[in-house]
């Protein structure tokens, strides 16, 4: 079913199955035919764990998206709302329920909060006079969704904003709960490391939750050896830089949502005879990206400059395979060839898709402006001219390039200079407000509050120390056959991943000084295991480390981590 989830060191299908079981159990509670009304946002994450067929098996006959006024007609016994706990959604639900009540045959309403019930929302439903209409009000903690054999996501887009801007710790609570679920399935993780304020809190919550569940001793042999919790704000630099891996660039240019990407359709027009050329598709082409696709698994983490050669090599292999048909003479040979056809055709389709995507990306990366932007980013990251107004940024503002691009560059400069000189900061601010509108005072204030943009205090720039100690800038990068994680940003080694690397070897004690400069505490906790579950380590055996980014991770960072893990596997 989802075979790609079981390829990794840890079989994540176990988690997926657990999540699906819980969903089935809930559906069976609402006996009879049902319609599900979806908070549209949730369809993406749910799509990763269940298909419509699963719902259908449990008598789900209709599905709608949540919208105002009345529900579309459906002759079902149960109406179930699948929603995030948000106040504005409660208002819509109430509207739906009230107009349904007037319509006639009564049905049973239920509500499933994802990832959890909210007293605030229930209060709102009560105020609107509909709380009593719901028979089941439950929560479905879709905390960690398996994406790939080595990747889980909480798909919680707002987490960074909530944690660092609004100081709302709810998403940390979910993180801790997700980690508890994981430990219930894969055993207690004996060692927890962390860096940052949020990391500290999540670790505290986990320890507390464990204490509360002492009743049932976890008797599963631990799969993970370590857990590393990392605050996103320990490393704000990495997400500001442009990712240069294949997957990273797809995300930079088109945005990957719930492992899907939407691409301009022109490049993917069907090349069939007859209907070609007439009606070009107008709807975006949607593709799922994960390592279930062999070719994608091979190229996703490569530096984009190394993708072209793989694609052309692959093209030769496939056309050679198709040529084989001329050599097939006997019935047996022909049969053999035919049996391989589906696989070959899939491979050809996959190759065609990725060649098209690579072409689209190449159009961007070979543009002059992309080159200029990259040059400036690399200057900042290697510590060149970070203390004065940058003329490229000025130009971008003057030409009214997208605001997000300008802000990313300005913030990058700020981070690489431990804050901007007041005069420089004021200059940028003024230019931005005059060009993009004064209401962005609020935007800039938020960036300052989150620490992405700030005036330099104390007149000291710590970045060079951090850069040198952690070897964040590598001058000679091999993009084709990398020897260091810095290939993912063509020179810059992501700080977060460097921390993970140094933790495994030689340990954080060697970088105490830098750890003190970076924000938030760093710590180590041990979760004692009963003697029966303690691992007897064989020499040369690899440890399995789970790394949890609190506030998001970039695809380039994931690529860098995969690279490290391959190095480990290799020796």
């Amino acid at each position, binding site marked *: 079913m989802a075979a790609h989830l079981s390829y990794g060191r840890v079989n994540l299908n176990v988690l997926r199955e657990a999540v699906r079981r819980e969903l089935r159990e809930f559906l069976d509670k609402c*006996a*009879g035919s049902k319609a599900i009304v*979806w908070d549209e946002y949730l*369809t*993406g994450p749910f*799509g990763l764990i*269940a*298909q*419509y*067929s699963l*719902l259908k098996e449990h*008598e789900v*006959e*209709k*599905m*709608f*998206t949540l*919208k105002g006024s009345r529900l*579309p*007609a*459906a*002759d079902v*016994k149960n109406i179930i709302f699948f929603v995030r706990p948000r*106040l504005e959604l409660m208002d819509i639900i109430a509207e739906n329920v009230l107009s349904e009540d007037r319509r006639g*045959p*009564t049905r049973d309403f239920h509500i499933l909060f994802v990832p*959890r019930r*909210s007293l*605030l929302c229930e*209060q709102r439903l009560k105020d609107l006079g509909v*709380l*009593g209409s719901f*028979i089941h009000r439950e929560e479905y903690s879709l905390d960690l969704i398996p994406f790939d054999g080595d990747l889980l996501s909480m798909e919680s887009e707002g987490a960074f904003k909530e944690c660092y801007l*609004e*100081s*709302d*710790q709810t998403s*940390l*609570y979910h993180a*801790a709960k997700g980690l508890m679920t994981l430990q219930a399935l894969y055993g207690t993780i004996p060692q927890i490391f962390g860096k940052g304020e949020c990391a500290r*809190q999540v670790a505290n919550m986990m320890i*507390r939750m464990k204490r509360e569940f002492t009743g049932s001793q976890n008797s599963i042999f631990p799969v993970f050896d370590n857990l590393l919790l990392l605050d996103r704000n320990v490393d704000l630099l990495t997400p500001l830089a442009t990712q240069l891996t294949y997957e990273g660039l797809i995300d930079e240019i088109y945005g990957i949502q719930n492992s*899907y990407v*939407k691409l301009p359709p022109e490049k993917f027009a069907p090349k069939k005879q007859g209907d070609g050329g007439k009606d070009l*598709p107008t*709807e975006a*082409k*949607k593709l*799922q990206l994960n390592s279930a696709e062999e070719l994608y698994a091979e190229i996703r983490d490569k530096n984009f400059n190394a993708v072209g050669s793989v694609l052309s090599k692959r093209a030769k292999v496939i056309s050679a395979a198709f040529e084989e048909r001329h050599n097939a003479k006997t019935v047996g040979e022909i049969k053999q060839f035919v049996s391989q056809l589906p696989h070959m055709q899939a491979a050809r389709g996959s190759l065609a898709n990725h060649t098209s995507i690579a072409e689209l990306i190449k159009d961007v990366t070979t543009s002059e402006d992309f080159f200029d932007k990259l040059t400036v980013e690399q200057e900042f990251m290697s510590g060149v001219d970070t203390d004065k107004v940058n003329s490229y940024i000025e*130009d971008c503002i*003057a030409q009214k390039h997208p605001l997000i691009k300008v802000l990313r560059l300005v913030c990058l400069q700020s981070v690489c200079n431990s804050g901007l000189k007041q005069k420089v900061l004021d200059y940028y*601010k003024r230019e931005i*407000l*005059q*060009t993009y509108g*004064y*209401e962005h*005072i*609020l935007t800039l*204030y938020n960036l300052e509050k989150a620490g992405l943009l700030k005036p330099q205090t104390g007149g000291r720039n710590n970045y060079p120390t951090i850069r040198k100690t952690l070897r964040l800038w590598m001058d000679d990068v091999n993009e084709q056959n990398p020897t260091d994680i810095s290939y993912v940003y063509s020179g810059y080694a992501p700080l977060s991943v460097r921390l993970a690397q140094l933790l495994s070897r030689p340990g954080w004690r060697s970088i105490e000084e830098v750890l003190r400069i970076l924000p938030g505490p760093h710590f180590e906790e041990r979760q004692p295991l009963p003697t029966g579950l303690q691992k007897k380590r064989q020499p040369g055996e690899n440890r399995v480390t789970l790394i949890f980014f609190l506030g998001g991770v970039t695809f380039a960072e994931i690529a860098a981590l995969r690279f490290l893990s391959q190095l480990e596997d290799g020796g």
Partner: protein
Amino acid sequence: MNRTKGDEEEYWNSSKFKAFTFDDEDDELSQLKESKRAVNSLRDFVDDEDDDDLERVSWSGEPVGSISWSIKETAGNSGSSQEGREQLKSRNSFSTYTQLPKPTSTYSLSSFFRGKEHWLKGQRVLVFSFQKTTQAIIFIYSGRKRLLDYSNDWSPSDTVRRLRKGKVCSLERFRSLQDKLQLLEEAVSMHDGNVITAVLIFLKRTLSKEILFRELEVRQVALRHLIHFLKEIGDQKLLLDLFRFLDRTEELALSHYREHLNIQDPEKRKEFLKTCVGLPFSAEDSAHIQDHYTLLERQIIIEANDRHLESAGQTEIFRKHPRKASILNMPLVTTLFYSCFYHYTEAEGTFSSPVNLKKTFKIPDKQYVLTALAARAKLRAWHDVDALFTTKNWLGYTKKRAPIGFHRVVEILHKNSAPVQILQEYVNLVEDVDTKLNLATKFKCHDVVIDTCRDLKDRQQLLAYRSKVDKGSAEEEKIDAILNSSQIRWKN
């Protein structure tokens, strides 16, 4: 193949059209009913035909059978309730499961014992709900099999733990301030925002504002949650009171300012911005807020005036270049561009003149020149462009000067498709020779390239360039003349 294609198209169109139609009786729909039923039955047939396990993908890439695909699908079939039901009936006759008898009334026994399953498991609280008339909620603590409302002996920590598990429980019995604060502290130590907020709602309701603020001031985590909560429910008044109490004046000011985004009417928005001027922003921001107000004030005047001019149809510029959008709420630089476009020659005294805008908002030279250049180039007013860069010194000599560098001038001119003669003039003014040569080559200013190569005595480059110009053109002749000249001492 052809048959299904046509039908499919019809199907997709109709499903798009009918998804989320809320009206039961739609005349147009019932007219279409006949044909649609035909299409649908056909679809069923087709479905059955190729109902295999292979994953199919619709054009938009949603795998057939995925959740988001199915929403479109099942919603599309329910155009009108009548029809939906009919269709369902016909489908059910094929389906394997038998439908459960429907309860005849809301208060039937079956709905009464809906919670049975939980009860048997002995794990959860059983909740009965009576619809509509009475809303009585009875809790059965299943472990001990005794009815209980809520126990009075639950400590704050028990209560918080129950809240965290999503169980309903009353906070009303915590009456003393000490109890309430202990409850809050317990909630905070759990880090569960949901519970913290629940307790805060209770405190907000039962404590006076002064006491609530005072106690939260020393409890930062809870305080942040309250601020977030107030923002969420839009209780602007209490939020502002809170900021005032905490002396967080800048946040107070920004929070007030943020409100302007919700005001659509320009007059009202302007009046609101006026109330923001003088609030305790940082020194820098204060100036920006003042500018924001002044800008909108100007825009309202300009907009009224220009709309009138445009509709009167007497002014040439508006006739030739009708306005694409109103200037209201546009950024400053956009306003300046607008004013350079429509009001370039106006005297400084008018609100809409570019010079007036430049002075009022202290727009830097660079910014001004860039914007004016873009606007005048768009109108192909090359004289104005020329004047923009011409300065006279005290002896009366004219000189060309560009605060943004002539390479930028050239690029902007090219973007606005200026003719080669004009481009050439400005390319020649670029100081750095390499840049000049690059730009000239890029924009095909042949004369500049040729002359520069000659000046550089770079024979090789000139030779190379010869292949790029048209055969038999004046440029080619010019190059040949230079290459054959004996006056030049080539460096290569």
